[in-house]
């Protein structure tokens, strides 16, 4: 009797484990199956065409690929000095005490605010500011666009990159740092020549993970990017990312090919973020063992 129950228990555990694995596989499979029609209708050109015009039956994902790449890399660029500074600040200068606690709490607060609220704030505060800047620069003052979306994204990803960076910096063995100090190195020299080389791959992983976040972020971007399906002409132009075009057009997709084109973009988004994430996590796991 007991034997049977043990068997049953183990079986149900194994079953649950398989269920989760199957769930992930089924997700990938569903996306593939439902995006087949667009690949059948247009072929691989779906990924490379520069025109997205559902009324004419033209589906090219290139504008969104470029939009996603531009916004997420710009966001990374904007956020890098800040996240690196926070990581060094909390990992080296103040790794305990009240100041550290304050910064940790505020960054986790920042990470906890729902993304739709970032978008809302961006729409009402950041967009007018960017519009003023654009008037000064003499470009068309849309206010919304790639630049604004990158700004919002950079605020949103700072906490992620910073917390991973802080963790890997605090992993640096103190013997190494002490040895450098004993040789007469200044604090910056220790950071530059001991901590950075040691934590390099971990910091890189943190950057990768926040890139994955930026690529997949939907709401905040959708609200401030301007939703324009043309190939982006400048950094200030309204555009669309892969995530934002799905959010905008999914419920409007009338024909099967249209819907399948959007699902194809979802598949692409899924694959790209998955690859970036797995590499990032692999690096971190290797470091922390």
């Amino acid at each position, binding site marked *: 009797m007991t034997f049977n129950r*043990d068997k049953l228990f183990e079986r149900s*555990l194994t079953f649950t484990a398989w269920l989760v694995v199957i*769930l992930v596989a089924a997700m990938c499979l569903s996306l593939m199956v439902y995006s087949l029609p667009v690949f059948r209708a247009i072929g691989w050109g779906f990924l490379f065409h520069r025109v997205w015009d559902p009324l004419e039956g033209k589906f090219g994902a290139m504008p969104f690929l470029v939009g996603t790449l531009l916004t997420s890399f710009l966001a990374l660029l904007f956020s890098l000095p*800040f996240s690196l500074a926070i990581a060094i600040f909390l990992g080296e200068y103040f790794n305990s005490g009240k100041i550290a606690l304050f910064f940790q709490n505020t960054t986790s607060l920042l990470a906890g605010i*729902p993304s739709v*609220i970032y978008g809302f704030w961006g729409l009402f505060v950041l967009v007018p500011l960017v519009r003023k800047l654009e008037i000064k620069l003499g470009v068309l003052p849309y206010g919304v666009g790639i630049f604004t979306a990158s700004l919002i994204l950079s605020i949103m990803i700072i906490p992620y990159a910073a917390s991973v960076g802080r963790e890997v910096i605090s992993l640096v063995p103190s013997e190494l740092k002490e040895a450098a100090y004993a040789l007469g190195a200044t604090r910056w020299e220790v950071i530059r020549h001991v901590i950075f080389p040691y934590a390099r791959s971990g910091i890189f992983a943190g950057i990768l993970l926040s890139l994955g976040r930026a690529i997949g972020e939907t709401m905040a971007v959708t609200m401030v990017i301007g939703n324009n399906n043309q190939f982006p002409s400048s950094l200030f132009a309204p555009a669309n990312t892969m995530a934002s075009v799905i959010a905008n057009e999914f419920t409007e997709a009338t024909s099967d090919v249209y819907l399948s084109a959007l699902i194809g973009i979802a598949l692409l988004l899924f694959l790209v973020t998955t690859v*970036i994430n797995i590499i990032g996590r692999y690096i971190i796991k290797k470091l922390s063992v």
Partner: protein
Amino acid sequence: MMENYRKRELINTLMKGLVFFFTTLSLVPLLFILFYLIKQGIGAINWEFLTHLPKPVGESGGGVFNAIVGTIILIILSTLMAVPLGIGAGIYLAEVKTGKLVYLLRLGTDILQGTPSIVLGVIAYLWVVKPMKSFSALAGSVALAIMMLPVIICSTEETLKLIPYSLKEAALALGAPYYRTILKVILPAGFSGILTGILLGIARIAGETAPLLFTAFGSPYLNLNPLKPINALPLVVFNYASSPYPDWWRQAWGASFVLTVMVLVFNLAAKIGARKWEIKF
């Protein structure tokens, strides 16, 4: 020699200043957002806002009662779906430790952790909305449940790994069968950690909009039927924010404030819980 030393000192001070400067500067947007949220949000909140249904376009006033109820229903449904699956898979990871399935499960959990929320919305649309031919609270909670899953799996595994082996051995030595050892000894010992994980999972999904756009969809009515479209606070923020009516903007700030407080409470509860019931042996 002396000059070289001065130069190094100078660089050291300069870089320290830069690090401090950028760290402080990074607080500016946060304070800016919080300031706006509190200033605009509190002004919009009153008894009517919290307990009334939305008024038709053009009439001012009305509230977001249906969205608050909807968000609670979505959270409950998705928690019910994600918790058994997540805890089961977490126990499996903690108990079995190696093997092909463990490898696949870890990979799957990592993938889920990084999947963009909008993709989960598409999945729930394909799996639930399409076959049932209707937007529904159920579809929304399926998307949210998938999003919660990796958080619960990870925290269950981490918690159970902390529980000393001697506890298990003691139970087995007393003649308790394996399943009772896990269910009556190991799980209760790790209860607080698992609960923390569930709370973190809820905090992760409570503010999500993207997975709900074409699953729960939103609705101006109060709905308790999980098979019908349902409103949620994040959807209210999104729909009202992109509307042309100043009164709706005001309500969107109010909804943002309520939503942020909700997420914060779950995060705080998780944090306090983790500290108070820290697993020590």
